[in-house]
């Protein structure tokens, strides 16, 4: 890899596995002892098991999973248990402080804030997760094709990525959103199409090294085609990197949809999401209606932090796998 063709990448603290730089990672003590031969090695464990153990030992990652699962339950199962009126505007009930029959009070239209938090969260989470998945699929295919074929294909595909990357995601998303009438599917599409770029770069790097591996070469000798190589060998072998990246993508996508909605460019009324709720709440900043701002703000930070913790735990777990290779 010469410095002429590839700009020196930063040591990315979020992804040391991808940058290939040495980092200090947490290695369980017993494994270290086994590795150095101090303890007799037991039954050889699968790399998946080892990765899982590292992940489960990471308290932040586990709490991330628990928090994320809780928020999913809260948003999708919550409304089935906690019935509120979220359809009919009721001005006689506006701005009721928390307590009594409205645990988190009501907003300007008389909607119950706790119930609204749930249905708004559904939109934020659905758009965020779907966009991250779509972005991952597009990025993986684009990067795998570029890395596998190399040469002119690689150069032209990656220059497109460079060009799109030079427009910051938020700016690009805002331009595209202003061209269309945003609805849930369209927002998923816009966010996915503006955030697959980093994934494609990572996967391209993996594909570049994977395509020279013996098993890919052997498959080609046996008459396997390029499609098979990309779909069956390159993409699955980069799965660790892809999963870690997809998790961070979820965090980024949720942050992006929330930011767009906050700016009034995302989800439009009567639908709402956490960003839109926050932007509604901030209008009453001088009236002391704190329950319109803090619960939803807390929910946003909680979900994004949980996704980041999961991603960091996965990264450490995948690194164990890479060390084994």
């Amino acid at each position, binding site marked *: 890899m*010469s*410095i*002429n063709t590839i*700009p*020196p990448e*930063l*040591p990315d*603290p*979020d992804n*040391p596995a991808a940058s290939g*730089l*040495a*980092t*200090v990672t947490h290695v369980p003590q017993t494994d270290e002892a086994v590795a150095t031969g101090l303890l007799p090695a037991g039954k050889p464990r699968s790399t998946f098991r080892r990765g899982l153990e590292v992940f489960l030992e990471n308290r932040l990652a586990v709490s991330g999973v628990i928090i994320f699962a809780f928020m999913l339950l809260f948003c999708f199962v919550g409304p089935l248990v906690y019935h509120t009126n979220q359809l009919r505007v009721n001005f006689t009930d506006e701005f009721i402080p928390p307590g009594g029959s409205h645990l988190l009070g009501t907003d300007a239209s008389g909607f119950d804030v706790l119930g609204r938090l749930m249905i708004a969260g559904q939109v934020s989470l659905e758009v965020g997760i779907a966009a991250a998945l779509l972005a991952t699929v597009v990025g993986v295919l684009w990067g795998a094709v570029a890395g596998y074929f190399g040469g002119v294909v690689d150069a032209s595909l990656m*220059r*497109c990525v*460079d*060009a*799109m*990357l*030079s*427009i*910051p*995601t*938020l*700016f*690009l998303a*805002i*331009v*595209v*959103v*202003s*061209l269309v009438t945003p609805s849930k599917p369209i927002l998923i599409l816009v966010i996915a199409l503006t955030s697959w770029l980093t994934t494609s770069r990572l996967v391209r790097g993996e594909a570049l090294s994977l395509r020279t591996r013996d098993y890919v070469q052997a498959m080609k000798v046996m008459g396997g085609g390029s499609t098979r190589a990309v779909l069956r060998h390159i993409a699955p072998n980069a799965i660790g990197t892809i999963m870690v990246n997809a998790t961070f993508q979820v*965090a980024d996508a949720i*942050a992006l949809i*929330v*930011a767009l909605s*906050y*700016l*009034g*460019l995302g989800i439009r009324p009567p639908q709402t999401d956490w*960003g839109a709720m*926050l932007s509604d709440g*901030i209008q009453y*900043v*001088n009236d002391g209606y704190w329950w319109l*701002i803090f619960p939803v*703000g807390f929910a*946003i*930070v909680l979900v*994004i*932090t949980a996704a*980041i913790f999961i991603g960091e735990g996965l990264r450490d777990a995948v690194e164990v796998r890479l060390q084994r290779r």
Partner: protein
Amino acid sequence: MAVFLLRRVLQSIIVILLVTVITFGLLRLIPGNPAIAVLGPNSFRNPAAIRQFDQQYGFDRPWYSQYWLWLDHILHLDLGFSWKLNQSVVSLLGNRLPKTIFLVGISTILALILAVPIGVLQAVRRNKMADHFFNGFSTLFYAMPAFLLGILLILIFAVKFPIFPPEGPQGEGLGVVFTEFNSLVLPIISLTLVTIALFSRYMRSAVLDNLTEDYVRTAKAKGASERRILLRHVLRNSLIPIATLLGLSLPAILAGALITEAVFNYPGMGYLFYQSALNTDYPVLLGVTIVVAVATVVGSLLADIAYAVLDPRVRYVSQ
């Protein structure tokens, strides 16, 4: 070195050209007829006026000819005309861009001054209280959307304890940022905190990487004090990636500035962009997009060059 420079510059030019193609593509995607958009909804009754408008602005030509015309305008620093604001995009930017540069500049410098010691402290006290504290701090501000941080600052320092105004300095010209510096405090704090979260993680991992290098062991063996090793050897080497970091963080910082400007009504380029998105003022949207993209490309180009100049290993590889 010269070959490396030439290749990187050429690469950047190609990328910028591709950006103009993408932007032009977006321009073509805009629904509706530009002539009717400008002349008013009733103008379809007057085809002569529409034809004249199309002719005047080149809308009657084929798309490649339009692209060429548009590119020619950009090269002559003509980014189009905002019919909604009745002003050319360049003159709008001339007014707004300095304010954004001022906000971004001060916040970035402050963030660097604070993030470098924090990162070093975290690396030296790895897995101890101080490390965990700042780790939590940087994760929190990394995970917290910039607008939420801005809202919280307004709630605490403008509403609860009215120390600072909730809005950025209003008014024309760059002079107001000095006369109304009080109102600039909250936007600067907001953008600085976001940027520190971005920088201190890099700094921590850079110092950690360097601490395991051979030269640290050599210096230790020669009897150098911890302090000397840290300040003379590790810190110096860890500062090299800062050049790259600054160049590559530009998109993230500009996005942070957009949000911060929107929250605090600070009339910079980001706020202009945001307002144009709400008003569907496409010439301004695309003009700002091009400016931001060029800034990003030039930023990463400068970062690469700085890296090559600062780190002799890069130069040797390229020769």
